[in-house]
């Protein structure tokens, strides 16, 4: 069991970073907060600043304009931090891997701990992904 799995057992605070996404994953993340899925019952909540966060959710492809910002946000985060790539774009580049404005896959920019694929992943699969990561032995 690594340090990250040991540290983060409960009440994860989540910061959401949209690197260059189509809004789909972002609204599905917000959906997790609303009464139907309600992740706040696990003590998870979205926070306003990455400096307060345990988990960094990254959605969308990293574009050339957001590249430096994504790195900066990662540097500002308290370590250890769990980075989760949400959606096909963050995992692989998806449809946009051939685009001229694509600055490279997310895991070449910052270290990524878990990937949740899907376009967009359903809120259930996001919850399942986070739980799977935390229960990793």
């Amino acid at each position: 069991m690594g340090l990250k799995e040991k540290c983060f057992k409960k009440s994860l605070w989540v910061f959401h970073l949209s690197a260059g996404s189509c809004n789909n994953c972002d609204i599905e993340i917000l959906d997790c907060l609303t009464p139907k899925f309600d992740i706040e019952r696990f003590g998870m909540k979205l926070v306003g600043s990455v400096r307060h966060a345990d988990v960094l959710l990254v959605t969308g492809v990293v574009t050339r304009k957001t590249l430096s910002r994504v790195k900066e946000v990662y540097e500002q985060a308290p370590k250890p931090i769990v980075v989760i790539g949400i959606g096909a774009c963050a995992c692989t580049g998806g449809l946009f891997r051939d685009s001229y404005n694509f600055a490279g896959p997310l895991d070449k920019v910052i270290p990524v701990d878990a990937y949740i694929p899907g376009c967009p992943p359903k809120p259930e699969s996001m919850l399942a992904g986070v739980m799977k990561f935390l229960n990793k032995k």
Partner: protein
Amino acid sequence: MGKKTVIPIGPYHPLLEEPEFFKLYCDGEIVKDMVWETGYNHRGIEKICQTKTFEQVFYVVERICGICSTSHPFAYANAVESIPGVEIPERAKYIRSIVGELERIHSHLLWVGLAGHFLGYNTVFMWAWKYREPILDMFEIITGNRNSYAMFTIGGVRRDINAEQATQLLKVLDDVKEKTDLLVGAVMDDPVIHARLKGVGVLTSKDIHDFGAVGPTARASMVDIDVRRDDPYAAYDMVNWKVILAKGGDVFAKAEVRLLEMYESIAIIKQCLEGLKKSNQGDIKIKVKEIPPGIGIGHAEAPRGEVFHFVKSDGGNSPVRHKIRAPSYTCIPTFRKSCVGGTVSDAAIATAAVDPCYCCTERMTQVYDYSTGKKIMNAAELIKLSQAKTRDLKDKKV
């Protein structure tokens, strides 16, 4: 005049879902000027479209924006089908309209929720998003996915709506109508919301014409435009509905337009379901063998306004040019009119009132010389220029 304070908002800010950057120049509480900078979300979609076949482009344009993921395929379908001039089957028309209107309901509910959140009414946010869920479930039943429906194709739609799904949909609509009554009551009768929204972010009909704003933003200022009525496509000329207008041009009027439009959408879907019943077991798709050389122009009324697509074909497999204009592109510049002169605390809701969608907007990062057609700037230089402009403005004004 006193010293001006600069408030930077973004690009990553709790208020914003997407990366964008605002700078408010304030004198005390009053916003004197604002600068907005986008381009964070530019993914080169028009260029990608030119490398895909006509069929594949549907799934590319769907990923321009996750919230209006039917409007872009809708406008693209209108554009491509206008090149060979095909008429799609009646059943496909009804199904297209149903998906389009369902999306409008879910998008407006989403807006009501976010607007409530900006105003500090988190209950409204939770309610609106909770009532949005049955619609997303319905999408999953009809199309197979909660967002990005992949429903449209050249010459029709890919999936049929059967009688069982229609019954389910009717039930969901009745439920949504009830909840809309509740939301309308909560918004229209609340004195605090009146005090907070009335007279904030006013856009006159002249401003709308000056900026070329579209959609609910324009209709809230009594500018009577709606592509669904002005240039009917799909089944919109086969059903009865009316364009919702409101007086005032303030944020309250925009909220009113959006809330009342949901009733119209419900009415449209119900009539379309009746139409589906009549055209029982018809075709949902006709085969289009090839797209001849030519130019296709298509538009559609997205929840935020008119989406415009231009497709040029040379008779080959893929478009040689694809141009997209999203509604937020014309609506976002109105920020300078609606925010300047107001207080800082009103700036958030005045910008949110347009329902801006940045991932729709960001199409362009290269500048060409108009006369010679030579490229004079690339993305990196433009970014540098944009940053320099912000810096200059800062030096000048502070």
